[in-house]
């Protein structure tokens, strides 16, 4: 068990800069999720920690040791892959004992100890009944358990998980998530989990690292991401459904602030008004949580005309995706009303800006008042 520290880590593949200077400190025993869209650099970062990629610049420390010049095996990390990457020519027992039988560790483990370790890890993961099965005979969930077992059997200092549940179907994915989290609680190994699914990251992560284009956007707990997103990107990426992002122009008429979104004028309210102080005649980005958007009546206050782009049932709620005039980004809201909508219908939505976030339209960073 150890903390992991990265400073100034850079990695380039040809013309593509995959990592553009990553500084990150992962506390001992934490479950950390690297979250971001595909191409953001999260997998590269994980592979750099594992030693499967060399870094171009920067340092990686695991515990007190600098590891960036070490071969993967010398870093004592456990790695589970998205496609499991089990050895197809070995059975479950062979897969679990493979790391212990590496020639480099010949002196480290006796046959008895190997057997005993394999047994105990198999029991922990409830695959002890499968030990003599060939890999091809396993289901997806079982394969994932074996892969986890193989990663854990050596008691690694850091457990690295690359999209570990992505290949499973939805139901199994949820079950495996729960198991992963409970397992990590029990063994206490510092864990880095790469995912593109923000709900998965929120469900599992003590800390979430949101990445984009090779840089870290925000590091925070799930609650922090939802309540204090550092950038408009984080705001539009996190939540179920994610917040809706509006581009608005701040104006002032007779001392009253107003936000112009397309043809509509909205009053920012006191809190938001304070945040936006001094940005008159500038564009700002406003993020509104879905539960603060409701269906409204055309012409009412704080209401914007919108056109339906999609309507879908999510549980008992109807999720409606609408396009606003003059705003390229769709707005999502949910309602318990039973509506017969058609795509292209004109509706009106009412925005409650009471807990909206505002972002600088150039830097994308959240505007905060001193009170925040």
């Amino acid at each position: 068990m150890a903390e992991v520290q990265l400073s100034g880590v850079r990695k380039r593949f040809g013309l593509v800069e995959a990592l553009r200077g990553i500084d990150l400190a992962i506390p001992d025993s934490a479950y950390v999720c690297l979250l971001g869209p595909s191409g953001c650099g999260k997998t590269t970062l994980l592979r750099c920690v594992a030693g499967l990629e060399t870094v171009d610049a920067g340092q990686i420390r695991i515990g007190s040791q600098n590891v960036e010049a070490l071969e993967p095996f010398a870093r004592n990390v456990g790695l589970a892959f998205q496609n499991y990457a089990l050895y197809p020519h070995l059975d479950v027992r062979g897969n679990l004992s493979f790391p212990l039988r590496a020639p480099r560790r010949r002196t480290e483990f006796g046959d008895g100890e190997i057997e005993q370790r394999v047994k105990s890890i198999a029991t922990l993961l409830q695959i002890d009944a499968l030990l003599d099965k060939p890999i091809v005979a396993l289901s997806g969930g079982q394969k994932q358990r074996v892969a986890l077992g193989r990663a854990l059997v050596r008691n690694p200092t850091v457990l690295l998980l690359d999209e570990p549940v992505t290949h499973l179907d939805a139901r199994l994915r949820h079950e495996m998530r729960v198991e992963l989290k409970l397992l990590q609680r029990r063994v206490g190994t510092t864990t880095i989990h790469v995912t593109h699914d923000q709900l998965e990251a929120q469900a599992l992560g003590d800390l979430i690292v949101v990445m984009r284009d090779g840089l870290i956007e925000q590091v925070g707990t799930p609650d922090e991401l939802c309540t204090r997103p550092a950038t408009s990107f984080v705001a539009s990426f996190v939540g179920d459904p994610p917040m809706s992002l509006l581009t608005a122009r701040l104006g002032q008429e007779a001392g009253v602030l107003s936000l112009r979104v397309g043809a509509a004028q909205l009053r920012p309210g006191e809190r938001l008004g304070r945040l936006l102080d001094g940005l008159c005649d500038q564009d700002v980005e406003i993020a509104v949580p879905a539960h603060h958007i409701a269906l409204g009546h055309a012409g009412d206050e704080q209401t914007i005309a919108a056109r339906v782009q999609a309507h879908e049932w999510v549980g008992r709620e109807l999720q409606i995706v609408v396009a606003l005039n003059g705003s390229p980004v769709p707005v999502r809201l949910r309602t318990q009303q039973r509506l017969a909508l058609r795509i292209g219908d004109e509706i009106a939505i009412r925005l409650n800006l009471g807990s909206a976030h505002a972002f600088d339209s150039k830097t994308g960073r959240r505007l905060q008042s001193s009170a925040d």
Partner: protein
Amino acid sequence: MTVGLVRSKDLKAGVRRSAAAWPIGTLRYLVAAIFTGFCLFPFYVIVTTALKTETAIFAWPPVWNFKPTLQSFYNALFVFGGRSAIFYLINSVIISAVSTFVAVVLGAMAAYGFARFSFAGKRHLAFWILSTRFAPPVAFIVPIYLMVQKAGMLDSHIALILIYTAMNLSLVIWILRGFFSEIPIEIEEAALVDGYSRLQIFWRVALPLVRPGIVSTAILSAIFSWNEFLYAMVLTQSKAATLPVYLAGFSNSMGLAWGEYMAVGTMAVLPILIFTFALQKHLVRGLTFGAVK
């Protein structure tokens, strides 16, 4: 009620399976059977001629019912010519086996290198190796003869072994390269993290996973070495001469001992008969360099 419809497998062949399909099916059987018979008939001739007495061999019309005799085999093995066929047989086995082993070992290593490591000029190198498959022995025989002569290796096993190794390398490398790159790389990365070095991974993870490819390329290489004629003919005379050289020697005194020829021919064909069925799954992939699987 069954609703009769076309199966797409049949449709590929442009032929429909319907109630009226049976004459087409029969026709297929007929054509296929005739063709197979055509393919097999010469084998029948080889074996039966080897088992016939001399009179039966020269009979007109050909004799279909005869009492088989092993006299020709006996002659070929123990009596005929200066040296027994066994001597040549052993040379053939040694040279094919060793050259195949070397080609597979070197080829597998190189194939793994090509599949898993990137380096400058890799593609060009790989395609140059591929093009050596087409090297016509007859065009190489003059320089190679002089090279072997200068090295003092005429009529030696080692010369043929080296040449056959080179001849089969492109096959081994290309086929195994395909097999290696079909292994998900994560499996090898997992082993790297698990504590194995790259060469250990090659040996303990990658090689076991391409075993079918190794087996089929080894068999194909062995067959090619076994069958090779021109290099053996030119580079060996007695000590290291292989079965084809022995057969070619016969043809100089042609027209005499058909039974014995065919007995040696049978011995030359027999190992291939045995291997063929082991091979059939990967044959096309092998012979077309993975272009057609």
